[in-house]
Structures are given as structure tokens and as C-alpha cells.
């Protein structure tokens, strides 16, 4: 076993022990529930940052910048600015009206059975799409740590499911993560996310400082070096926009296609965050609206600082290693081993390897690679836990208990039964995401994937339903179901028709854009409005309008807000 792998396992082991210990401690103390209600703003802010910054942020953005220069930085910008939407419109009203899940807020006004079913559907879709990218990220790490694993396992994975052969590394690490999460070893508590957020920030700060140290803290020299990296197709320097989506190459609807892609991406980035179920759940752990507000502020500070550092991480990898040499196995002189294709998700670990070797010799490189890979792995595991929790609680709490058992099969639901349903849901979502990861391809960039699917579903299905429930008096059950189901289906459909995320891209896709938000998000909002008017005509749901008065007062003031029932 290589030094790197051993160190990786040790660091991951320590992290798991710390988080397990922290969770156990808060689990066994009498103050558990009290602490649940009094999670401080800064603690929750760290936890939001932990839940939010996934493989997409830690591996994906650095990879996009390392391979495409400036354009990748747009993800960093958008994912921070997104929090203004959350802060201004979502965080406080959600805290004031919410209980456990997003669907609870909707069911306040709407007819519970259809709305809970629809919300469970969109939540599972967002979670599976988000998790698919995490699986690819985890697979990339395993491919670096065990470069021959894919080759050795290939014979055992030589069968197709619905026409797709599973990727051995992704399937293996994905299954292990799911077993661990479902068995309950990894707990999605506030403390897990806090530990993970601190590790992630620490890793990013360390690598950023080393990149700057490489250039003797001369920022201009760093940019000179980035400028000297040129894209092979467009011939543009990496400091320049227009490499990921080259301008002036094609038009769509009479507008430059690259411009449309970038605006479409921007829409998904800044509107998607406010519809992510696992982030919304975070606002139910704080005592009041003021704490919800301050937790967003803390999260924005941390997340923003991290995203500024992607400048050093991404451009650093581009300038110091170069995209041609970022792959699972490198030979002497940091050249890609023969026969291997570059994989942009590996930029961060490769940068760690390079900087460690440069400053501290071969062992230093192995150690830093192991450390960053372990941080990335802890990041992924924590996010997978949070997503699993969101998906399984949506399904077991909203759909199984709230719909099936309350309105269809009457009788009592034991806690054991509820947990069983939650675990089965988690397992199915996990397997689905492993299959999706193989379908999309192991070299697809995880940030582009998360922004391209999960964020678009969140923005087109969940956001209209939440915003209109909180702020539009005439909104009703029909509108909510139309956007939750319609937004999800339209997004998945357009993405399936689109060009995909791995090269070579489909030459003439049925839908021309990678980022479908510019179509799907307006469609989601229009469906919500049209659905509402149809429901109105049918006079199907008059209570929704009457209940608006209540949710209006509660959302704005916190009158009658529940003491936070979600444990820390």
C-alpha cells in the first residue's frame, strides 16, 4: 500500500472518529434538544457552509478554472451572490413558518396530499442529481489514490444496466459511502458539517498560501504566469473570458450562444441555492429569524472567502501543472502517465501533490496529496449525508407518513417503520446516483453537473413553489404541484436532450444548451402561475387563499413560530 493511501485512510479515519465523537456527545447529553433550539448563528453559518460546499466547490470549480481559465470563476461568483436571494427572500420566512422540511411550509396553505407528494418527488430529484456529482468526485479521488483499481475491477463490472456500464471506482466508493451513511455511522448533524467546513477552509487556505509562496507573494507575477497559459483552441490567455464557451462561434435565437450559456448558468447559480432542500432544512435548526439571518451572514463570509481562494487553487493548477498533466497517475516531472486522459476533477489533489513535492520533497507531495484527498473525501461524505437526510426525510416524512399512511393506509407508524422507509429511500437514491454518475461519465466536471442539473431543478421546481407560497395571495395547490412536478420534469427532459458534459460532446443535440436554466426556470414559474389560474377556474382550492393571511403574518413576524424541532 502506498504512503499516500495509508495517510489518506488515517486522516479519513481521524475525521470520522472526531465527527462520530462530536455527534455522540451531543446525542447523549440531556441538553440535546435544548441545544437543538439554541444553535448559535455562527455555528449554523458554519454548518450551512459545510452542507453547501461539496465536491462541486472543492474539486469542481478548481477543475473548471484549471482547464478553462476565467470562465470557471463564474461558478464561484454565482454561488456566493446566490446567498443574497436566500437572505432577502427565503431564510427568515422559512424559519418563521417551517417545521422539518420544505414541504411543511407548502402544506401550510396547500392541500397536503398532492403538495407533499410533489415536493417529495422534486426533493428526491434534486438530491439524486446533486449526489450523482458527489459520486463522480469521490470516484476521481479513488482513481488518484488507486490508479490501477479501474483496470483491475473492470472484468467484474463488465455488465450494463439500462445500456450503461458502471464505473468501477465510482460504484465501489459510492456503495461504501452509502452503506456507511445508511448504517448511521455518518451523522448529518450540525457538528459534522462544522468539522468538515473547518477542514475544507483549512485545506484551501493552506494550498492558496503555498501557491502564493511559489510566486513569493507577488500577485502580479502570478497573473503573468496565468496569462502565459493559452487555450489551444481559442488561443486566448487563461485570464480571459470566452474559453469554456467561446464567443462568436454560434448563435441561438439570434444571440451569441456562449452569452446565452453564461446567462443561463448564472440564472441557475443564483436562483438554485434558494431551492435546495438540504440547505433550507438548515434554517429550521436556529431559534429565530434573527439567528437565521446571522447564520446566512456567517455562511456568506466563509463561502465567499473560499470562492475567492479558487483563484489561487484553479489558476494555480493551470499555471503550475497545466491541464494536459492533470490525470489519475503522473510520471516523473508531473507528466500524465501514457494512455491516461486528463480529468479536471483531479486538479485540486494534483495541485497539492505538486506543491508538496516542490516545497517538501516527494514525501511532502505524498503527504499533502493524502491530506487534500482526505479533506475532499470528508467533504463529499458530509454532503452525501446531508443530501441523504434531505431525500429520505422528504420521502419518509412527507410522502410515506404524510401521504401514504395518513391518507391511504391508516394505522400507526412505528419509528422503526419510518426509519426503515428512510433507509430504503436512501439506498435507492444512492444506487440511482451511482448509475447516473456512470451514465454522465467519470470525467464530467462536478461543478458543471451540480449547477447544470440539481440547481436548475431547485430553481425551476422548488423556488417558484416556495416564493409564491410565501408571497402570492392567489397561489394554490394546483400551481404548487404544477411547478414542483413540471419544473423537475422539464429540467430533466431538456438536460437529457442536451449535449452532455463529457467530450466529445454530442454533435447535434436535440436541445443546444448545456445550461438549460434559461428555458427551464421561466417554464417553472409560468407553470406555477398557469396552474394557479386553472385551479382558480376550477375553484378547486379556496382555502389556500384564506390561509395566505396566516402564512403572511407568520412569515413576516414569526408570530407563533415553532421552537426549532430539528435536533442539532
Amino acid at each position, binding site marked *: 500500500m502506498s504512503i499516500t493511501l495509508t495517510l489518506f485512510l488515517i486522516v479519513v479515519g481521524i475525521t470520522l472518529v472526531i465527527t462520530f465523537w462530536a455527534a455522540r456527545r451531543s446525542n447523549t447529553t440531556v441538553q440535546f434538544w435544548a441545544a437543538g433550539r439554541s444553535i448559535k448563528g455562527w455555528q449554523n453559518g458554519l454548518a450551512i457552509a459545510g452542507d453547501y460546499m461539496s465536491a462541486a466547490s472543492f474539486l469542481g470549480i478548481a477543475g473548471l478554472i484549471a482547464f478553462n481559465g476565467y470562465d470557471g470563476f463564474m461558478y464561484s461568483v454565482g454561488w456566493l451572490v446566490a446567498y443574497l436571494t436566500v437572505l432577502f427572500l427565503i431564510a427568515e420566512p422559512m424559519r418563521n413558518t417551517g417545521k422539518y422540511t420544505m414541504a411543511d411550509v407548502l402544506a401550510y396553505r396547500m392541500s397536503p396530499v398532492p403538495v407533499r407528494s410533489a415536493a417529495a418527488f422534486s426533493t428526491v430529484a434534486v438530491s439524486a442529481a446533486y449526489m450523482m456529482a458527489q459520486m463522480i468526485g469521490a470516484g476521481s479521488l479513488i482513481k488518484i489514490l488507486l490508479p490501477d483499481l479501474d483496470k483491475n475491477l473492470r472484468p467484474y463490472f463488465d455488465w450494463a444496466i439500462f445500456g450503461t456500464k458502471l464505473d468501477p471506482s465510482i460504484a465501489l466508493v459510492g456503495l461504501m459511502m452509502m452503506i456507511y451513511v445508511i448504517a448511521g455511522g455518518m451523522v448529518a448533524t450540525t457538528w459534522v458539517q462544522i468539522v468538515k467546513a473547518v477542514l475544507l477552509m483549512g485545506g484551501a487556505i493552506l494550498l492558496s498560501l503555498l501557491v502564493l509562496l511559489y510566486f513569493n507573494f507577488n500577485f502580479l507575477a502570478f497573473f503573468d504566469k496565468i496569462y502565459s497559459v493559452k487555450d489551444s483552441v481559442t488561443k486566448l490567455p487563461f485570464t480571459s473570458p470566452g474559453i469554456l464557451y467561446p464567443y462568436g462561434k454560434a448563435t441561438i435565437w439570434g444571440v451569441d450562444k456562449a452569452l446565452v450559456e453564461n446567462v443561463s448558468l448564472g440564472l441557475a447559480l443564483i436562483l438554485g441555492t434558494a431551492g435546495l432542500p438540504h440547505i433550507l432544512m438548515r434554517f429550521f435548526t436556529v431559534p429565530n429569524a434573527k439567528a437565521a439571518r446571522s447564520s446566512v451572514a456567517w455562511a456568506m*463570509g466563509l463561502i465567499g472567502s473560499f470562492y475567492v481562494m479558487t483563484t489561487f487553487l484553479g489558476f494555480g493548477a493551470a499555471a503550475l501543472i497545466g491541464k494536459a498533466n492533470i490525470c489519475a497517475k503522473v510520471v516523473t516531472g508531473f507528466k500524465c502517465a501514457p494512455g491516461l486522459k486528463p480529468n479536471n476533477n483531479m486538479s485540486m489533489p494534483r495541485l497539492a501533490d505538486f506543491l508538496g513535492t516542490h516545497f517538501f520533497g516527494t514525501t511532502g507531495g505524498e503527504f499533502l496529496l493524502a491530506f487534500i484527498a482526505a479533506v475532499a473525501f470528508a467533504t463529499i461524505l458530509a454532503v452525501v449525508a446531508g443530501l441523504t437526510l434531505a431525500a429520505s426525510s422528504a420521502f419518509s416524512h412527507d410522502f410515506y407518513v404524510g401521504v401514504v399512511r395518513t391518507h391511504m393506509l391508516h394505522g400507526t407508524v412505528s419509528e422503526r417503520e419510518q426509519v426503515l422507509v*428512510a433507509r430504503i429511500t436512501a439506498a435507492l437514491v444512492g444506487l440511482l446516483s451511482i448509475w447516473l454518475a456512470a451514465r454522465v461519465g467519470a470525467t464530467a466536471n462536478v461543478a458543471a453537473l451540480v449547477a447544470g442539473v440539481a440547481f436548475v431543478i431547485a430553481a425551476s421546481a422548488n423556488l417558484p413553489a416556495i416564493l409564491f407560497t410565501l408571497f402570492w395571495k392567489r397561489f394554490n395547490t394546483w400551481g404548487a404541484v404544477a411547478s414542483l412536478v413540471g419544473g423537475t420534469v422539464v429540467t430533466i427532459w431538456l438536460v437529457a436532450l442536451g449535449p452532455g458534459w463529457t467530450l466529445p460532446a454530442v454533435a447535434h443535440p436535440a436541445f443546444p444548451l448545456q445550461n438549460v436554466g434559461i428555458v427551464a426556470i421561466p417554464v417553472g414559474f409560468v407553470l406555477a402561475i398557469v396552474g394557479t389560474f386553472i385551479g382558480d377556474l376550477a375553484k378547486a382550492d379556496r382555502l389556500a387563499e384564506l390561509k395566505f393571511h396566516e402564512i403572511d403574518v407568520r412569515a413576516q413576524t414569526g408570530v407563533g413560530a415553532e421552537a426549532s424541532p430539528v435536533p442539532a
Partner: protein
Amino acid sequence: MEIGKSLPAQGAPPKEPARPEPVGSDVVHWEGLEETDEFRKLVNARWRFVAPATVFFLAYYFALPLSNGLFPNVMRTEIIGHINLAYIFALSQFVMAWLLAYFYIRQAGRVFDPLAEAVRRRAGKGR
């Protein structure tokens, strides 16, 4: 907490909060609160901040991809060394987001919270 144990133990399926009859006293209560001066002031104060701030940040944010696409040569203009306008504009988005968040939180503490507190007090008394 373990997966599936996120919710407090539920022995029986939770009843949906009963949706009250249209003319129940509850409805009158909420509508009554909605029409109080304090509540109207709160809603007005909030929207007076949130609406322009939202329009501003959306405009400022989308100005970045739009100007990158429409005026690529202007955005490639180098300001200091090889640091170009596009990168500086992108960095300014971080500052913009942090500043707007700061102003919102300051405004909320000074204006929204006292008004919300007034409505909550009235709700406590006037049921």
C-alpha cells in the same frame, strides 16, 4: 442524528394541521393582524429595502456575463499587470454581496425587528 431519525419519534401518523373552516375565528385573527398599522409598516419597510436591493443585485450580477459576452475586448483590457477588467468586475461581485448583506442585516436589526416585535406583542394580547 441518524438517517431517518431526523424527526422526533412519531407514534402515530401526525395529523396535518387542521385547515380551519373559512369563517373560523382563527382566520379573522390573522386577517386582523394583517391590517394593523405595525404589520403594514413592517411589510412596507421590508419591501422598500428588499425590492430595490434585489433588483440591484440581479442587475449587477447579470451585468458580468452580459458585458463579458457583449464587449469581450473591453473586458479583456488589462488594469494592473495582466489583471484584466473581467477579473476585477468578478471580484467586485464578492464585495457587492458582502456589502448588501451587511446593509440588510443592519436595516433588519434597526427597523424590521422592532416592528415585528410590536406585531408579536399585539398578537399575544389581542387574540
